């Protein structure tokens, strides 16, 4: 398969994740969309690493995977705290910081 096929696939997954982030009301649903977008980035990194025979792409993929895990842990902890305090995780209702 040519490099472009992998890039198109990654772009598709990225915009699907973007769509999820924009349209979901539930905070956990938004986090799932972010997961999809980061996943698409990983596909891009690995594809470029393979086609350019450059190991840095693989190392960066490892780093982004680890950082994503940390991000999910903190994000879900925040979601649980918000839920405890506000009894909702609908993003529309969380407007405490709105000016």
């Amino acid at each position, binding site marked *: 398969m040519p490099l*472009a096929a992998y890039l198109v696939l990654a772009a598709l*997954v990225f915009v*699907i994740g973007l769509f999820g982030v924009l349209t979901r009301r539930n905070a956990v*649903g938004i986090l799932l969309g972010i997961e999809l977008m980061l996943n698409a980035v990983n596909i891009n990194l*690995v594809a470029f690493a393979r086609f350019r025979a450059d190991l840095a792409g693989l190392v960066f993929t*490892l780093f982004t995977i680890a950082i994503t*895990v940390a991000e999910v842990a903190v994000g879900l902890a925040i979601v*649980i705290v918000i839920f405890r305090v506000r009894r909702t995780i609908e993003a529309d209702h969380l407007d405490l910081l709105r000016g």
Partner: protein
Amino acid sequence: MTEIVGFCVAAVVLVGASLAVVLTPNLFHAVLWLAAALVATGGIFLLLDSPFLFAVQLLLYAGGVVTIVVFAIMLTERLVGASIRQTSRFVFNGAVLAAAVFAAIMGFVLQGGAVARPIAGGDQLRELGRALAGPFGVPLQLLGVLLVIALLGALYFARAED
């Protein structure tokens, strides 16, 4: 030939599961679809001759992340006492914006010329280990610090009130 078939299967599963993640009304089902999408991504990594990343993907993403999200949903759902249905808003606007971003990315992809795929060479895992211990040693240590800080922070947030 096998690569083309494998790529098509993985791509169809990946795109279908991703669409299900953002469209299904049941949040729990969305997480299960996300697991399917992440495993399909692992399949793409295999096609790109990166079996090590495939293993990492399964362990950390499909194993770790999905488990954490399922736990969070079960916690909040139990507290609510009702199955969480989630609705979407601005579906049309979101679709338009996503399509525009896709078109823009396609513009860049089409500008790039075809790149020949080099022959897979050598022991990739050994080179990866050397890179992580050598030129990428400091970022790796920083990553460890970041993980500890993030997990401590998550623990602090989610601790029991007393």
